[in-house]
């Protein structure tokens, strides 16, 4: 998962670094101000612990007993864990950045590519993991399931982001990359999810005072919704590049059953998810427009319902 030096061109690496620096600066501000005390030294020590716990290699066939996976191992990242315990994704950004910086000294991940690595494993993983957990908890889903889902997403989405980064860099084809890294991280994510649930349970028993249990109630729904919308927009932009040009399962079945009647009967606004004459950008635009339309309809419906209730 750690991108080494040389696999991302310098100008792209610089862009990732700039994003990473903005987030790191904010996370330091969080450690200094948002926690009631200036807890910076504590996080330095905790980062050392995080580094060490990432050195525990766990066999992949512990999760899925396939002989092919013998010898393959993964380790816990802990971005979601840190974010949930300190009730802030900034904790994940800060801790993972420190861990990645020291790992790069051991040759695990590059110096120029560190910005991209921080973006994937700290920022994307921390925010997605944390807000999935909060969002699911708000929907009154049981805590272990919410934690598991958050941790699993925090492994698989960075892998997809990594596939995109290597594709932008021209280093690895997108679909194969997403499939390869997505599969591996999807499996490792199951482990990450289970371990995060176990560790969270153990920590809440040992030190209930450090865990902010009521975080799901405290965080405003608007914040969670905003995070969700940003994530969905990201996926909407990514989706057309990942989908193949073959008709999807539903379309194919419809074709077989209705023998193209469906096409003549209904003329969609944007045929096959694209706007003519805009190529790949058109697909992105079509999905974004569609998505915006759904949100607009949703808001209008909510307003009408609200008016009706008062």
């Amino acid at each position: 998962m750690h991108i080494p030096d040389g696999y991302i061109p310098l100008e792209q690496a610089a862009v990732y670094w700039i994003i990473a620096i903005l987030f790191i600066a904010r996370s330091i501000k969080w450690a200094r101000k948002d926690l009631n005390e200036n807890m910076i030294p504590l996080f330095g020590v905790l980062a050392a612990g995080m580094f060490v716990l990432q050195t525990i290699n766990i066999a992949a066939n512990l999760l899925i007993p396939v002989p092919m996976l013998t010898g393959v191992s993964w380790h816990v990242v802990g971005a979601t864990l840190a974010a949930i315990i300190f009730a802030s994704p900034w904790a994940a950004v800060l801790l993972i950045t420190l861990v990645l910086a020291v790992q790069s000294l051991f040759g695990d991940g590059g110096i120029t590519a560190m910005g991209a690595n921080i973006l994937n494993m700290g920022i994307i993983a921390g925010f997605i993991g944390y807000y999935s957990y909060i969002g699911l908890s708000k929907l009154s889903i049981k805590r272990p399931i919410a934690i598991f889902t958050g941790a699993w997403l925090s492994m698989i989405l960075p892998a997809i982001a990594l596939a995109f980064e290597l594709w932008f860099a021209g280093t690895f084809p997108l679909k194969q990359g997403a499939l390869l890294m997505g599969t591996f991280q999807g499996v490792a994510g199951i482990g990450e999810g289970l371990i995060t649930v176990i560790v969270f349970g153990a920590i809440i028993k040992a030190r209930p005072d450090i865990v902010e249990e009521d975080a799901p109630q405290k965080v405003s729904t608007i914040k969670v919704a905003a995070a969700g919308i940003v994530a969905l927009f990201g996926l909407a932009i990514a989706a057309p590049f990942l989908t193949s040009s073959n008709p999807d399962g539903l379309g194919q079945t419809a074709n077989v059953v209705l023998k193209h009647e469906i096409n003549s009967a209904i003329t969609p606004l944007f045929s096959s998810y694209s706007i003519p004459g805009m190529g790949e950008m058109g697909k992105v635009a079509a999905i974004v427009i569609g998505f915006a339309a759904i949100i607009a309809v949703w808001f209008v419906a909510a307003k009408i319902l609200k008016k009706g209730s008062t």
Partner: protein
Amino acid sequence: MHMSITEFERETYRKSPIHRIDGRIKILMTLAIIVYAVALPRMDSLDLIKLGLLEIYLIILMMFARLEFSYLAMRFAIALPFGLGIAAFQPFVRQPFIQDFTILYTLPLGIEVSREGALFGVIIFAKFLVCISAVILLSSTIPMSELVSSARRLGLPKELALLFTMMVRYLFVFWNMLGRIRTAQKTRCFEIWNKNVPRKWTLEQIGYTISSLFVRSYEQGERTYQSMLCRGYNADAHVYVGRKKITAPDIFIFTLTIAIIAAAQVRVV
């Protein structure tokens, strides 16, 4: 292929001309080499000569640093696999930025090996090798605490310097703690790869190890933080780093590195 971080750190306390060079100079040298290697164009066979020159220079520096061969081999063996894997894929895929492909061989299942893909694979691997060599040289010739204080002298923000100072100081404590946990588990016949026990149980044990490490490091952090408060730590506090003079050998080695990069660029083109 497991190597203790204490073994890594031991190498940094050797005595050699390279170990004596100022930390700031070593950081800047490493960055210069890495940025130069990464910035080379991605499809140019001349890159290989330039990168080769840099690699030879780095190997010479490693020899001057009196680093042991077995140690270096181990360091490279740990660092290489992921990058090597991606580079090895290159001959089989069509890079989007290359227009014409010359097919060298066609393997069964219609897999084609292209000359351009292979060249690109070799170039990114060479870049990766040079960068890794530079990082290994840096991290084997400078203790971690010295690295942080040198970075501080180069203008690392004080908060980050404090974070890294604390982290580096406790890295070895927790490394040994994990070692003790592992030894304790071993005496109870716990084996992470053991297939004769339920998987759920093994996973739980790993979870407990991790939570124990997490809680212990948090508590250590609390203790450290509180004792720092007792000694007057506040938001304006920063890590003190004394002044250190840059000596003539430092300037020499820095100039030499820049000259070699310049020579690679000018001579080869």
